[in-house]
C-alpha cells in the first residue's frame, strides 16, 4: 500500500453517504477517489470526465454541459473536491492570486466557481503538498468561503500527510487522522496555524484488498497516481 493509494481512499471517503450528487474533482487523486467511491460504497454518485460527459465506471451514462453544472451548484446537489493554493483554519480557500489582488506577486487561476460552490453545496479540498505555505493564518483572496463566512459545509481536507475536518464547536479545522507512517508532530509542523488536535488521533484507514485491486488493476493500471 502506497501513500497515494491511502490518499485515493481518503478522498473517496469524503463522498460517503452523499447519494445522487455530482462529484466535482480537480486533480488525479480526487478523480480516482470519486470513481472508487462510485464503484464501491457510493454507487449513486455522478462522476464527469471533466468536460460535458457523465461517466459510470469510465463509460458514458449522461450529458452535463457547463450551464447545467451551475444549476446543480445552485440547487446544492453537488460535492466538489477542489485544490487550494492557500487554506485557513475555517476553510477559506484561495486559488485566485498570491500577494495583493491589485497587483499580485503571483496571479493564479482566478476564483473560478469557488465562491458559488462553497456557499451552495458541500466542498472538500485536496492538498498534494501539506505545508505552511498552503495552510496559512489568512488567505490573500477569499475564493472559496469558509465556515466563518457562511460556507454550506467544508467537509474534509485530504493532504499527503493527513485527513482534516471541521468537527469542532466553532467549525474550525481539526486533525481527523494521520496517514500511516506520519506523526502528529509532522502535521503540526506543516500547518501554519493552530489545529485542533484530539487526544487520540487515529491512523487514516488503510485501503481494503478490494479497493487496492480496483485502484491498481482497474482505475489506474499505469500507476499515474504515484507520479
Amino acid at each position, binding site marked *: 500500500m502506497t501513500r497515494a493509494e491511502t490518499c485515493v481512499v481518503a478522498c473517496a471517503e469524503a463522498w460517503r453517504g452523499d447519494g445522487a450528487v455530482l462529484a466535482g474533482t480537480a486533480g488525479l487523486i480526487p478523480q480516482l477517489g470519486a470513481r472508487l467511491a462510485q464503484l464501491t460504497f457510493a454507487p449513486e454518485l455522478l462522476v464527469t470526465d471533466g*468536460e*460535458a*460527459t457523465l461517466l459510470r465506471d469510465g463509460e458514458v451514462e449522461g*450529458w452535463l*454541459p*457547463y*450551464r447545467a453544472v*451551475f444549476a446543480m*451548484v*445552485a440547487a446544492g446537489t453537488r460535492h466538489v473536491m477542489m485544490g487550494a493554493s492557500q487554506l485557513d483554519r475555517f476553510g477559506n480557500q484561495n486559488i*485566485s*492570486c498570491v500577494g495583493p*489582488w*491589485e*497587483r*499580485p*506577486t*503571483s*496571479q*493564479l*487561476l*482566478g*476564483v*473560478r*466557481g*469557488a*465562491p*458559488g460552490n*462553497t*456557499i*451552495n453545496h458541500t466542498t472538500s479540498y485536496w492538498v498534494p503538498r501539506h505545508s505552511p505555505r498552503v495552510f496559512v493564518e489568512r488567505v490573500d*483572496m*477569499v*475564493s*472559496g*468561503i469558509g465556515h466563518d*463566512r*457562511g*460556507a454550506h459545509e467544508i467537509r474534509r481536507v485530504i493532504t499527503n500527510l493527513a485527513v482534516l475536518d471541521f468537527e469542532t464547536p466553532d467549525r474550525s479545522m481539526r486533525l481527523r487522522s494521520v496517514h500511516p507512517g506520519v506523526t502528529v508532530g509532522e502535521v503540526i509542523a506543516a500547518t501554519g496555524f493552530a489545529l485542533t488536535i484530539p487526544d487520540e488521533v487515529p491512523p487514516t484507514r488503510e485501503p481494503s484488498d478490494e479497493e487496492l485491486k480496483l485502484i491498481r488493476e482497474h482505475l489506474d493500471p499505469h500507476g499515474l497516481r504515484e507520479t
Partner: protein
Amino acid sequence: MDKRMTIAEVVDEIRDGMTVGIGGWGSRRKPMALVRAIARARRRNLTLVTYGGPDVGLLVAEGCVERVVTGFVSLDSIPLEPHFRRARSAGTLLLTEYDEGMLYWGLLAAANRLPFLPIRAGLGSDVMRVNPDLRTVHSPYLDGTELVAMPAVNIDVSLVHLNRVDAGGNGRYLGPDPYFDDLFCLAAKRRFVSCERLLSTEELIGSGPPQTLLTNRSMVDGVVETPHGAHFTSCVPDYGRDEEFQREYATADWNTFRARYLDGDEDDYQKAVARWRGTMDDYQKAVAG
C-alpha cells in the same frame, strides 16, 4: 440575408475601447482567427468578457486589453496562462473578477434585458471586496434572503466560433458543450460568428438534429468561414486542441512568436503552423530513429 464577411470586415467593427465578448471556454472552441486579427489590427483599450483562455493571453501580450471580465484564465492542459499572469504582476491589466456562475448570470441578465439577476455566489467571498460596486438585494418575499444583485454584463461586440453555420447565421455546434456562446450573442449589440465550414441552410439542417443548432439568424450580424479558425484551441470533432503548439505559444519568447505566427494574415498563420508541424514531425522521426 447573406451575412458573409471577411475577417478584416469583422475587425473593422471593433474599435478601441469597446467591450468585446469572446465565446468558448478556457482553451476550447475560441474564435482564434478573429482574435489574431484583432491583435494584428492593434486595437487598444479593449474590455474582454470571457471564460478566459489564450484569447486573453494573446490580446494582452499584444497590448490590446485594458480590462478582463472573467472568473478565470487558463489553457486547461497548462493551468496558468503565462501572458495574463505576467501582465497582472506587472500591474498593466485591470481585472473584474467574478465567480464563473456570476458571469453566467450577468450574461443571462443582459440577454434578458434585465438590470441584474439575484444569485448566492459571491456572498462572503473577496469577490465582493474587489468589486466594490456590487450590491446585494433582499428577497421581497417572506424568506428575506440576501442575494448578490449580479449586474447585466452588456457587450458591444461578441465573437464566437461554431462548427457549421449558414450564410444567415444559423449555427451548429458538434462538440459536447455549447459553452455560453448563445448568451454571448444575446448579450451583445453586434454579433459575429466564425465557423469551420459554411453550409447552405439545407445542408446545415440536414447535417444533424435541430437541438444542436445554437444560434439562429436573429442572433448574428456577420458570418465568416475560418477553417482551423479555433486553432490551437479545441474544436471537436473537427479537431482537438493542438497541445504541442499550445506549449510553443506558452513558452516561446513573445517577439519571436509574433514574428513567426502573427505578422502575416490568417492564411500565413495557418501556413506557418503547418511548417512548424512539419519540422516537429521530422524531429520526432529523427528521434525515433
